[in-house]
């Protein structure tokens, strides 16, 4: 019958209108902006300033797609600096909003999405975003940066180098120098890499950027076996920005290599508390084991497993870490499976190394050898790869190869691992005694 329907319709319209009025006006709460902190304690942080400036501007002018995109990029950058993943959804929201305001002809938003994809380890997606951005604006140096990062992690070294060169030709500065330094380091040219990273340090302004450069310089010194140089760089970086976690990891490494296990454990504990990701937890566990605290080490490994499980539950995929975790647990079969699937996705040096170790742990040394060789070839200045090659070579009976690899370990960085370093030294002396 019509009349009840009409009645219901009229009634529901009334109800909806009233509720809508109430919902729109009364119930939804946009909280007022948080009060500004009373005093700025840290040194002037241009990134934080630019974020708050962009936020204020967008409140007044929500159709400014350029500022939305810039804000998204800034959030991604801040997430990297603070290691706070809760900024990723904000970044994505801001970048998508920029695209909503202007869908076409918006390369900056695409660059932002590419940077975000890189941060989430979605390297193929990042590559696509960067390429699209470059189509819209072939002079955009940031797009080349994103592209270079994606190519590097996907294992396409020549493409990465080309992208970095373009970036250097467009806008030489901290971002370009840092990537160029890493590129040279990957090709084994450590001296030039160090020189470029010093240039990057000269160009750095924000404390977090200074800390980043110092950390890289410390790592470069570490790879060359220069403990004191590394210690100096890490200390300078911590003076510039005490909250930058990678510096503490570096300091822990140096302390472990110098035999100060307790100091190393303390630093590793701080890092593991602040950023409990699988790699920091595994490092902490290793140091604990070295310090003779095995039960605590077990606990940290369990935590590392939990952290990885959460990462996967959140939609991420990182089989490399999964494989490393499996190796620490002694689960060689899973390690091989995970490392292989990651290798199929991206033939990168780290992946080759882990796959080799996994196959070695599973007893399949003949299969392990080519991967170990590949890793050592891709990273000729990496003592850790050389060590793993040596272990595999020994297992297949290639004493000469093992000896050569162990000699390289000694040349490059005998302190490369607090657990494996002494083992490598002993093995080398044993092999040389055999001769």
């Amino acid at each position, binding site marked *: 019958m019509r009349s*009840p329907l009409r009645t219901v319709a009229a009634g529901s*319209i*009334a109800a909806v209108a009233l509720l*809508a009025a109430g919902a729109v*006006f009364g119930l939804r709460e946009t909280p007022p902006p948080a009060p500004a902190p009373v005093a700025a304690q840290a040194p*002037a942080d*241009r*990134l934080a*300033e*630019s974020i*708050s400036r962009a936020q204020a*501007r967008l409140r007044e*002018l929500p159709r400014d*797609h350029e500022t939305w995109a810039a804000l998204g*990029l*800034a959030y*991604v*950058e801040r997430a*990297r600096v603070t290691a706070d*993943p809760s900024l*990723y*959804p904000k970044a994505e929201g801001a970048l998508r909003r920029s695209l909503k305001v202007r869908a076409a002809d918006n*390369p900056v938003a695409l660059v932002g999405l590419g940077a975000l994809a890189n*941060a989430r380890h979605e390297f193929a997606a990042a590559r696509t975003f960067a390429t699209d951005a470059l189509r819209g*604006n072939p*002079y955009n*140096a*940031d797009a080349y*940066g*994103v592209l270079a*990062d994606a190519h*590097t992690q996907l294992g396409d070294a020549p493409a990465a180098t*080309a992208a*970095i*060169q373009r970036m*250097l*030709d467009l*806008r*030489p*500065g*901290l971002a370009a*120098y*840092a990537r160029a330094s*890493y590129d*040279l380091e990957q090709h084994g040219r450590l001296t*030039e890499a160090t020189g470029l990273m010093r240039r990057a340090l000269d*160009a750095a*302004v*924000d404390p977090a*950027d200074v800390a980043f450069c110092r950390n890289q310089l410390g790592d470069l010194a570490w790879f060359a076996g220069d403990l004191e140089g590394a210690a100096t760089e890490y200390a300078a970086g911590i*003076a510039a920005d005490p909250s930058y976690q*990678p510096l503490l990891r570096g300091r822990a490494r140096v302390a472990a290599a110098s035999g100060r296990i307790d100091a190393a454990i303390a630093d590793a504990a701080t890092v593991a508390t602040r*950023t409990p*990701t*699988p*790699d920091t937890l595994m490092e902490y566990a290793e140091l604990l084991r070295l310090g003779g605290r095995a039960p605590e080490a077990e606990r940290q490994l369990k935590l590392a497993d939990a*952290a990885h499980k959460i990462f996967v539950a*959140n*939609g*991420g995929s990182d089989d490399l870490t999964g494989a490393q975790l499996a190796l620490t647990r002694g689960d060689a079969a899973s390690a091989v499976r995970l490392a292989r699937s990651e290798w199929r996705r991206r033939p990168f040096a780290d992946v080759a190394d882990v796959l080799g170790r996994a196959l070695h742990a599973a007893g399949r040394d003949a299969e392990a050898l080519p991967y170990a060789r590949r890793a050592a070839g891709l990273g000729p200045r990496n003592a850790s790869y050389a060590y793993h090659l040596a272990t595999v070579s020994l297992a297949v009976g290639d004493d000469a190869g093992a000896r050569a690899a162990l000699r390289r370990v000694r040349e490059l960085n005998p302190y490369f691992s607090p657990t494996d370093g002494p083992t490598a030294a002993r093995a080398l002396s044993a092999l040389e005694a055999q001769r």
Partner: protein
Amino acid sequence: MTTQPHRRRRRVVPALAATGIVLAGALAGLGPQVSSASSHREAPLIASDPAADNTDLYAFVSPERPGYVNLIANWIPFEEPDGGPNFYPFATDAAYNINVDSDGDAKADAVFRWTFKNVDRRGGSTFLYNNGPVTSLDDKNLLFKQTYTLSSSFNGGPFQTRISDAPVAPSRIGAASMPDYQKLRDQATVQLKGGWKLFAGQADDPFFLDLRVFDLLYGGDLSETGTDTLAGYNVNSLAIQVPFKDVALRGDAKRNPVIGVWTTTDRPKVRVTGQTELGPRGDRVQVSRLGNPLVNEVVVPANLKDAFNSISPDKDAGIPAVVKRVTDPELPKLIESIYGVPAPATPRNDLVEIFLTGITTKAGGPIKADLNSQLNNMDVDAKRFRPSEMLRLNLNVPVTAQPNRLGVLAKDLQGFPNGRRLTDDAVDIAVQAVEGAAQTGKLVDALAAGDKVDANDNTFGDVFPYVALPNQGAVNAGKGTGTAKSGTNASPAAAVGDSGPALSPVSAQASSGTALSTGILVAVIGVGSLVTILATWWLRRRRTAPAFARAEDTIPL
């Protein structure tokens, strides 16, 4: 009667199911929140690069020193007067240049280059800028300062150092630490043999405008203007005063009075591939460039800014996208759609004259005046002339006793776009020019008020370096003035209110277009619904009874 509840039930379950799907979709749509498996290989992407932050360029003939021309270039906008502890040094790995083209081929004929060094006595253990009052640039209490080397090259010749380790005026950190900043400013103003005067250091930002004017490009409108967005902020300034003969073609300013000026910053080129020797090389890569003010806002769209920053002027004419933006600019169309002021007909060859060739009769442009194009230099070979974006100044135009902020548009030929003086209101002139005022010779009345900011918050000086002393005190807490040296009869400061560092109006008066339209929409819907309901009720009461008789209502008495 039984059918009704059944029908209702049948309707309810699908509705519930649909709601369930919608809810599930909404939950799923929250998206993955991936925890960061942070690798130490994640390098910064958008690191701040103050060297690349070119803000303004000024070029004008000295009013008090005849025969000399002043070139002033600024970097790093929005310098907070309390921006400690690192403040705002010049970059030490970049070179800052002011280029002059006197023969119109869009290549530099004179280049002045500044490079900087840090003198840091803090040793990495402290971040304090000073540990006591600083009374002179050599004061031991000043823990961080910079020095510069100026070199110059003429007609493509090698660079020659004119002065090295010259002092840079430090960031002004407050009355307690720097009780007499004027003294520090004087120490940083040097005169060379040959009459050159130089200054490098912090200064009040001489640019005055309401940046909200350009919100037009993002959906704003000209309703909120009148606040000098840059009031209270400082910049880093490089100033040079040279005799005409050092910049004019063939040294003869009488025959060749027009020069084109632009400023750039560059860094050494670095190779990581394709060469045997990798690393920095001798050639330079340009990281930023500036000539006329507001080119980025008025002419060059976002996608071309990167291109524009990296190419030299001689390549401008070869980028069709840039030329197209000059001949067919976006701003007049926006103004027409919002304010109804008709946009002048394209192609805008008058803008081509102003921005790319200089105002002259010799290039076939619509503005029939010979003002500031290199084509008007007598010794110029017209065939080698290339249009390019740069600030062009005619050195022979006499100094006006009473400068008019609207420059050429108000018949004050010494003003912008013929060079640029500190007091010229670049925004109003640019907006009028982009609406065709230069071509018609008449100001567009509807836009006559412009951005309602007509003068700088601080008064300029009347001797080199002219820019006012840096402000002190945080911007929002009330500005300290930095009036420049000596009494002046320039127009008094028109301090127009407070502005925050954000490019936004004071929030109490906020009303963006979207809030208004939403409000109206909801108002209409709400009121309409209520009216409908009431009307329905009222009409129902007038219907005849039988239409509404329900089976269950008629109960036998």
